[in-house]
């Protein structure tokens, strides 16, 4: 498999009032393969959002290179193609919906790409079906629930047929039900359509579904591995401002009480099966 995203020694400085620079990312190198599902975690201010914005040329690195599917983000002429290939979903669903009806919001990105109208309608229908919002086609966005709004945002992105989906805390403002809806949609896109996913989150439970977890701290990548490697207890996640998922904490307690169960169970059903 080839790499879809490649960061080579990337650093990024925010310039506050022109002078003082704040180093948000410090010499980061990371490669992500086509079709992978990456969870990106880290405490507040560790640079996750900054990293996300570098992936579709909203920001360009102060030094180093970001390659997307063989295109370089710092090249002006590659910018729009990169943005088409890497779709972004943000935390607040309200602030990324542009139009006054659901269908028109999904169409927004396609209109920007200059696709002709008959094809736009077709793709809108298809995208709404995939996120399960077909029956809301003519609704006003503000009447949708949080989870539905976020799925609408995802529909607007997948209608553009991106190869990679970058989601910056897409579930942070949702209730458990809305979170589940959104997570299922993301997973489906990844498993069935082979879309590469970079999922930034503060919810440790959500990371268990990823192929790989990348943890960041103060602008650096500190861990990069499979969920069972990250949570095996060798590095102190608390020190990075992170928690261990409830399931794994339970597992550890049970093991320390002398129960004989494998350490790397990441699924509630598996645990139930072993225990009962």
């Amino acid at each position, binding site marked *: 498999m080839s790499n879809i995203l490649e960061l080579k020694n990337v650093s990024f400085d925010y310039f506050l009032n022109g002078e003082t620079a704040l180093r948000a990312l410090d010499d980061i190198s990371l490669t992500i393969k086509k079709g992978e599902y990456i969870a990106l975690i880290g405490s507040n201010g560790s640079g996750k959002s900054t990293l996300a914005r570098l992936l579709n040329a909203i920001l360009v690195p102060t030094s180093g290179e970001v390659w997307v599917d063989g295109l370089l983000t710092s090249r002006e002429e590659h910018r729009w193609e990169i943005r088409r290939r890497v779709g972004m979903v943000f935390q607040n669903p309200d602030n990324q919906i*542009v*139009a006054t009806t659901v269908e028109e919001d999904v169409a927004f990105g396609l209109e920007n790409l200059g696709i002709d109208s008959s094809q*736009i309608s077709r793709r809108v229908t298809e995208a709404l079906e995939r996120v399960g919002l077909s029956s809301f086609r003519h609704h006003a966005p503000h009447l949708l629930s949080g989870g539905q709004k976020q799925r609408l945002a995802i529909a607007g992105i997948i209608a553009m047929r991106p190869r990679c989906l970058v989601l910056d805390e897409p579930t942070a403002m949702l209730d458990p039900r809305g979170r589940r809806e959104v997570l299922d949609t993301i997973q489906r896109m990844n498993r069935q359509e082979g879309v590469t996913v970079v999922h930034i989150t503060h919810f440790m439970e959500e990371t268990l579904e990823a192929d790989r977890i990348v943890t960041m701290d103060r602008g650096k990548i500190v861990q990069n591995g499979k969920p069972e490697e990250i949570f095996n207890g060798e590095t102190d996640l608390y020190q990075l401002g992170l928690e261990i998922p409830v399931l794994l904490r339970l597992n550890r307690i049970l093991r320390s009480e002398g129960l004989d169960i494998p350490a790397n169970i990441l699924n509630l059903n598996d645990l139930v099966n072993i225990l009962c």
Partner: protein
Amino acid sequence: MQSITLGHYLPGDSFLHNLDPRIKLLCLLVLIVTLFLVRTFWGFMFFGVFIILIFSASKLPWRYFLRGLRPVFFIIFFTLILHFLFTDGGRVYLRLGPLTVEEAGVFMGTFMTLRLVLLVITTLLITLTTSPISFADGIEYILRPFRRLGIPGHEIAMMMTIALRFIPTLMEESDKIRKAQMARGADFETGNIFRRARNLVPLLVPLFVSAFRRADELAIAMEARCYRGGENRTKMRELHTRPRDYLGLSVSLGMMLAILFSGV
């Protein structure tokens, strides 16, 4: 609170509702010009009957007729009073100290009032039957030829769309902030007008701060979805003129020519 929209659109299914928004805007322009060509009361009567016929054919409730006039009531009232008192000429009807109401004043006052009323009602007819979104579409198309003169048609339409999109969101938010501030003892309901205006500050400041943050995030989200202005942009709903649109335009033009050549 939640249902306020721009221009008070009343959804429906009439001839006027289904006209292409570009054509409707053109018709409005033609009819406004026509109103300024009218020279006699007969002309206004003719025009008025025409508008009333269309109004009832569009199945609009009559109370909107009067409700639409309410915001401009004072302008109309002052036009009338100023003409009555200060336009001189002809017979004197009434003396009020140094002021007189004279024939020419009564004529001009009534004439101008009728023109204003008809102007408002004609515009109302269009705004009541056009959804704000197709209005924005229409404006974008109509202004397209003036792009070279620096008139940003696409941007105006995009601003209208975004405003429409965010009005309910911001209303909801202002409601929330209002309740939060009331819970802390803020008072929005008592006191004279200045006091009340000052009491709005704790409502408006957070609302503005949040609106700016939203604008910031929205701009980034739009760019991330490849938005780069109106150039090379297509539309999902393209506008198409149909025979009925030409009929509508012909009727308006006919109205203008009739008034122009009959001299009423």
